[in-house]
């Protein structure tokens, strides 16, 4: 139990995907202009990550490892992610209009979000079991959401600040991401799993 909790905590704050591993930077820069939008994006990412983790784990354990086909990992992972994202999108669109409006439009962007592929690769690397993998996927998604929502909060505030023209947009966002990474360093050295 403790261990599972640790997996989530470490994925959320200590080894935050965005701030420590530089993953999912493109949406982190692109979709962090408004809190609502980034929350939706974060939720979509979390959803897909939680879903892909077990699927990837199953394929990996029961096909790739079994038949010594580890070198196909990248290809199978990505194809699973791409297909899952598309299925989820279609499903949501069909079933819930409201959900589609908040999550759906971000789903296509997720296929190429490297955070998701990384979480797939990482859980194999770490040798997590099925439950651990799922929690890890979930935690990483939450970590991404946390980072992007904080960034969005700051950027909304910055809309009213007097940022020099040359630094507006990507430049200031990156610099603030740097500050965030500095602040999150306070958690380094914590026990992780």
């Amino acid at each position, binding site marked *: 139990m403790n261990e599972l909790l640790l997996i989530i905590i470490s994925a959320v704050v200590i080894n935050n995907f965005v701030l420590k591993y530089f993953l999912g930077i493109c949406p982190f820069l692109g979709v962090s202009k408004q809190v609502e939008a980034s929350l939706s994006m974060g939720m979509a990412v979390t959803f897909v990550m939680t879903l892909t983790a077990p699927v990837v784990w199953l394929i990996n354990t029961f096909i790739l490892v079994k038949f010594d086909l580890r070198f196909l990992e*990248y290809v199978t992972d990505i194809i699973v992610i791409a297909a899952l994202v598309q299925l989820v999108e279609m499903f949501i669109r069909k079933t819930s209009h409201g959900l589609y409006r908040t999550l759906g439009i971000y789903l296509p962007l997720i296929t*190429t979000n490297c955070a998701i592929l990384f979480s797939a690769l990482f859980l194999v690397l770490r040798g997590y079991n099925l439950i651990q993998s799922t929690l890890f996927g979930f935690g990483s998604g939450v970590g991404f959401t946390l980072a992007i929502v904080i960034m969005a909060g700051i950027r909304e505030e910055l809309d009213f600040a007097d940022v020099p023209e040359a630094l507006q947009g990507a430049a200031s966002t990156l610099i603030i991401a740097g500050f965030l990474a500095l602040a999150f360093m306070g958690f380094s050295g914590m026990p992780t799993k």
Partner: protein
Amino acid sequence: MRQYILFKDALKGLWKENPVFRQLLGMCPTLAVTNAAIFGLSMGLATFFVLLCSSIIISIFRRVFPHQVRIASFVVIIATFVTVVDLFLKGNFPEISKALGPYVPLIVVNCLILGRQEVFASKNPLHRAVADALGMGIGFTLALIALASIRELLGSGTIFGVQILTLVGEGGRFRPWIIMLLPAGAFLTLGTMIGISNFFTGRAAKKSACH
């Protein structure tokens, strides 16, 4: 005329539409692996190779892919080449392979590559796709080297491993800026570089065109 177009296709990647400084594409590897110039170079070349190969394939077969499975097919093709690069590095440059670690497979989802396939290779004939891939690939590699050199210089006093600034412990006066080797330093350096380049070209960077 034809040459001119090709030339333009290739040249735009170097500065006008530089994937890193102008389009903000493929940010994750850009930031993650650039704490030493050699890694920047390796990552740049690896990406370059994948971009080029997949552009060629996709441009040739561009009429074959049906709309619904377009992205899925592109992704598989890209992933295939990424695996090739990964195996190549593992076999021949195990140290670099280890250092780049999981960021090599992430080339699969590098928005730069998929983006170019979507926007360019799948819509243009082979020669133009190649020119574009060359420009973008070189632009990306150069940007990575630039960023990595700055970080390596300030972070370790070296560039490509060559000592430029002598360290305090070794009779010099330079104390390495460890932050430059850390995530925070990567963000700060790239942010500052983009800011400076905006300042000189007089326009604010386009918002991320990634997704």
